[in-house]
C-alpha cells in the first residue's frame, strides 16, 4: 500500500484501507484516498481497476469488507446510500440512471428535501439556463444520451450537496455536450462544492484535477498532482504494460 501523505488542505473525504471482495475478485484492495474540500480530485485506472466499486463504497451502495470512510469527520462505511446522500453527497452513474417514465421536471423535483418548496421553480430555472426548457415535460427515456447526462447533472444541483462524485461523465458525450458538462463542473467549484471524478479522457483529467489517484487491480498504485502521476513508472505500466 502506498503511504498517503497528508495534504495541506482541509479534507472532506478520506477513505482508509478500504477493501471489497466479490466472490473470487478483490475489487478494491486496501485502497486509501483523500479529497480536499473545494478541489477537483480525480481517480484514473484501467477498466475493472475498482474505480466504480470505490465510488459505490463511498456512496453507500456497497458495504466495504474492511476499512473506514470518513466523510465530514464521520465514518460512513456501510451507511445506506439515502443517508449518505442526505449528508450532502451526490453522484452520477457511469451509465446515466434517470427515472425513464418520469418527465425531466419530475426527475429533478423528486430528489429534493421534503420541505423544499421552490423545487419546481429551481428546476425550471436550471433547465432554462442550459436551454433545455422545452424538454421539461418530456419523458427522460426519450432524451438523447448527452441530454440525459446533462439532466443527471442538473438533478445533482437540486440537492444540497458538498461533495459530488462523477463516474465517467465524459464517456460517449459529444464535444458540445462535453463543454456544457465542464461548465457545470466549473459552476459547482465556484459554488464551493468538492468534486471527485473518474474518467478515461486523460487530457481532461490532467487539466481538470488538482490531485489524481491511480487505481490498478483495486489498489492505489500512485497519487499526486497530474504532472507527478504522468511521470510515474507504475502508471505507465498499468496503462501500457510497458
Amino acid at each position, binding site marked *: 500500500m502506498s503511504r498517503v501523505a497528508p495534504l495541506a488542505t482541509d479534507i472532506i473525504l478520506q477513505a482508509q484501507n478500504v477493501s471489497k471482495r466479490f466472490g473470487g475478485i478483490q475489487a478494491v484492495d486496501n485502497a486509501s484516498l483523500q479529497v480536499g474540500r473545494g478541489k477537483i480530485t480525480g481517480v484514473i485506472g484501467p477498466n475493472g481497476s475498482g474505480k466504480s466499486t470505490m465510488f459505490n463504497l463511498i456512496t453507500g451502495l456497497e458495504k466495504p469488507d474492511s476499512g473506514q470512510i470518513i466523510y465530514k469527520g464521520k465514518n460512513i462505511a456501510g451507511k445506506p*446510500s*439515502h443517508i449518505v446522500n442526505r449528508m450532502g453527497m451526490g453522484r452520477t*452513474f457511469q451509465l446515466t440512471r*434517470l427515472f425513464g417514465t*418520469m418527465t425531466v421536471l419530475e426527475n429533478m423535483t*423528486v*430528489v429534493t428535501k421534503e420541505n423544499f418548496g421552490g423545487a419546481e421553480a429551481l428546476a425550471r430555472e436550471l433547465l432554462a439556463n442550459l436551454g433545455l426548457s422545452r424538454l421539461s415535460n*418530456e419523458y427522460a427515456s426519450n432524451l438523447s444520451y448527452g441530454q440525459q447526462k446533462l439532466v443527471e447533472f442538473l438533478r445533482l444541483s437540486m440537492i444540497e450537496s458538498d461533495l459530488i462524485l462523477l463516474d465517467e461523465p465524459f464517456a460517449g458525450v459529444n464535444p458540445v455536450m462535453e463543454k456544457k458538462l465542464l461548465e457545470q463542473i466549473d459552476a459547482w467549484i465556484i459554488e464551493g462544492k468538492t468534486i471527485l471524478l473518474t474518467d478515461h479522457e486523460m487530457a481532461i483529467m490532467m487539466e481538470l484535477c488538482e490531485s489524481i489517484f491511480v487505481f490498478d487491480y483495486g489498489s492505489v498504485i500512485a497519487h499526486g498532482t497530474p504532472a507527478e502521476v504522468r511521470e510515474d513508472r507504475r502508471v505507465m505500466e498499468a496503462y501500457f504494460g510497458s
Partner: protein
Amino acid sequence: MATRTPPVTDQAPNDTNVDAYTPPGWEKYIGWAYLVGLIISVIFLLRLPIAADAYTVTLTLTVLLVITLSTSWNWLSGFGGYTSFAHAGFFGIGSYIGALLLHYEKMHWIPVMIVAGIGCGIIGFLVGLPTLRLRGPYFAIAMLAFTELCRVIALAWDDVTLGGNGVFLPILRLQLPEENMSFWEEAQMTFHNNQNYYAMLVLATIACIWSYVLGTSRWGLKLLAIRDDEVAAQAMGIKTTYVKVTTFAGSAVFPGIAGAIYARHVGYIDPVTVFAIIWSIRAITTSIFGGRGTIIGPILGAVVLTLVSEKVWEQDPNLYQIVYGGIIILVVLFMPGGLMALLQQRNIFPRSRRI
C-alpha cells in the same frame, strides 16, 4: 423563461432532437372532471338499489369490490413496480377478522370493518418490512407464499378460526316495505337492506379518491422513481424501504376491509374461498388491462373486465375462463401498458400523472 434561453447549442451530430412534449391546456382540469364524474357516479349508485333488482345490486357490489382491489393493488405494484400476490392474503385475513368478530358478536359491524382494515395494515407493515427487500420475481413469489401461509393458518388454527368448517355470519334480517312509508323511512329501509353494498360503495370511493391523491403527490413520484431505478432513487436520497413498506401497509387496508364486507355479504366463508389466489389475479389482471401505474386504468379495467366476464359467464361458465384468459394474453402481447397507455399513445389522453 424562454426569453432567457441561450442559443440552442445541443444540436450536435449524435444528439437527435426529440419533439418536446407539451401537455394540452385542459390537462390541469382533469382532476375537476374526475370530481364531477365521481359525484354523478356516486349519486347514481346511491339510488341504484331503489331502482334495480337484487341481481344488479350484487353485480355492482362485485364491480365495486374489484375496483377496490385493483386500485389499492396499483399503488405499490403499479406506481411502485413491485408486483404483489398478497392481495388474496389480505382479503382473506380481512374476511376472517370481520367474520369472526361478527360470528362471536363482539361489536357492531361498522367498527368491525375498521378493525379488519387496521389489522391488515399492521400485518402488511410487518410482512413488508422483511420481504420488500426482495426485488422483482422474488417479492412476487414471497407474496404467493404469504397468501398460502395465511390459508394454512386459517385451516389449521381451528380453535380460533373454526378451521375447515368455515365461519357462519349472523343473517341480516331484511325490512319489508310497508304501506304509507315516508321517503325517509323508505331510504332507511333501502340502506338497511343493502348495507354491504353501501359499505363497498364508500370503500371504493375512498380508494379512488386516495388513488388520485397518491398518484399526483410527491409520494407517488417517489414510487415511480423506485419503479424506474431503485438504486438511483436511493442514491439520490429517497428512503426507498420506508416508502415501499408504508405504501404496502396502506394498500393492505383496502382488501382487508373489502374482505370483511364480502364475508358479511355472502354470509359464510371458509379458508379455500377467501384465500383463493383468484383475488390477487383479479386485482392484477384488471389493473394491467386498464393500465397499471395510472389512476383511472385500474378503475376502468375493473368495470370493463368484471362486466364482460359476467356476461360471458352467463352464457357459459367454461367459456368464461377461456375468454378471460384470452383477453389477458392479448393485452399483455399487444398493449402491455393497458388501455390507458394505448389511449395516450394515440394522443387521445395526454401524458399526465393525472391520468
